[in-house]
């Protein structure tokens, strides 16, 4: 079952990446908007911090991963 799930995820990601359109710089007006950035906003740093302290899981979001604090 786990192998089937992993295979489905890889097929989905591969399909998405292979169907990408070539977007020219003058066509990126929507993509360049502040809320379209592929990173968390600076003010979200605080929420990522308390989630790192209060949960056993961390990382993959640009925040703390365990070093630099007495957190998990």
């Amino acid at each position, binding site marked *: 079952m786990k192998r089937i799930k992993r295979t489905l995820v890889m097929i989905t990601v591969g399909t998405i990446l292979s169907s990408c359109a070539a977007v020219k710089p003058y066509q990126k007006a929507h993509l360049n*908007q502040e809320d379209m950035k592929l990173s968390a906003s600076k003010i979200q740093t605080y929420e990522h911090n308390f989630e790192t302290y209060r949960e056993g899981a961390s990382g993959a979001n640009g925040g703390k991963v365990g070093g630099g604090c007495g957190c998990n």
Partner: protein
Amino acid sequence: MQLKHFWAIGLFALNGFLLAQNSHQSKEIEVDFLVNYYQQDGDHAAVTGGNGTEKLHDTAPMIIVNVPIGNNSLNVATGVDFYSSASSDNIDPIRSGASGSDARAYANIDYTINNAYGNGSYGFLLGGSAEYDYTSFSFGGKWATASADDNRELALSGRIFFDRAQLIYPIELRNGTDWLSDGNRRTYNVSASYSQVLSQRAQLSLMSDVVYQSGLLSTPFHRVYFTGESRPRVEKLPDSRIKIPVGARLNYYVNDWLISRLYYRFYWDDFGIQANTAEIELPVAISQSVSITPFYRYHKQSAADDYRPFGEHNPGDEFYTSDHDLSDFNSHKVGLGLRYYPVFGVADFGSLLMKRLDFRFSVYDRSDGLSAFSVGMGVSFIINNH
């Protein structure tokens, strides 16, 4: 010298550096002032073995400065967390309530060197933090490359943390027993991210970290109670840990007033914790200069193998913790963000422009009874060097 003196000297030096840059730079310097208040309460404090108040509040101001230096950039983030914790009083109940307060100061420096073609960069990372019983120093590097049409980007970074904790045990367990041998902790982190433009309205990023930690991974002042024993012991966890989170973010421009931001993360570590996290944000443009962003986050994790609730550990266990942060639970976070970003700025003071205001409020609820709220505010400035 007090902590506030170090911070004041650091800010003065940074201000001098910025003024010096003004005479050479033609690009804009960005300065963000942020402040956040966080408050939580619950009934499972690890200091008292997983059964006690978790009341805590934290006020955290922060400054982030980004200075362009020719084709490169210097980013400095520094701040202080002023926190007060009711459970800290229970490390040594005889001491006054002031023992539950502390401050953690930190600073991170990121220097990025961009190549002449504009499609690649590398850089250096430096960081440090200090509080009463914990200090940290870190350094690292990063590298990124983008396709010629800027529709794809691959970024890699690595960082090492050298941490040291003071071995402060609960008052009744300070009888000369060497509960823990060493207060040092090392964290090695390698991160990778891949970003892809999918269409004129959508873009995706995939992110992952591989983290290896060694040394002191338990907390010296956490108590653990055992079946058939009235006297607790100091928390004890394995001296190494591997963590692998994998995340994905998908942003879609629905129309001129709505954007969809989706995030998912799967997490695994060799402590036995597996977790799934999903978040949705929906920025809605109320006008040309105001947007509100409702958001919701769900998190579910399994317990660490060495976790047991209060009083349920077997006296023969090799490793033991009753820290509910490592237990199995699910959590919900819901909140609202507000942004004000007029085209010509909020206020213009000549060479200083107040560009944007951000507010963010969230409520967090964990299935074991811990609840929290967070409220933050950010002000962005641009220092114009024309």
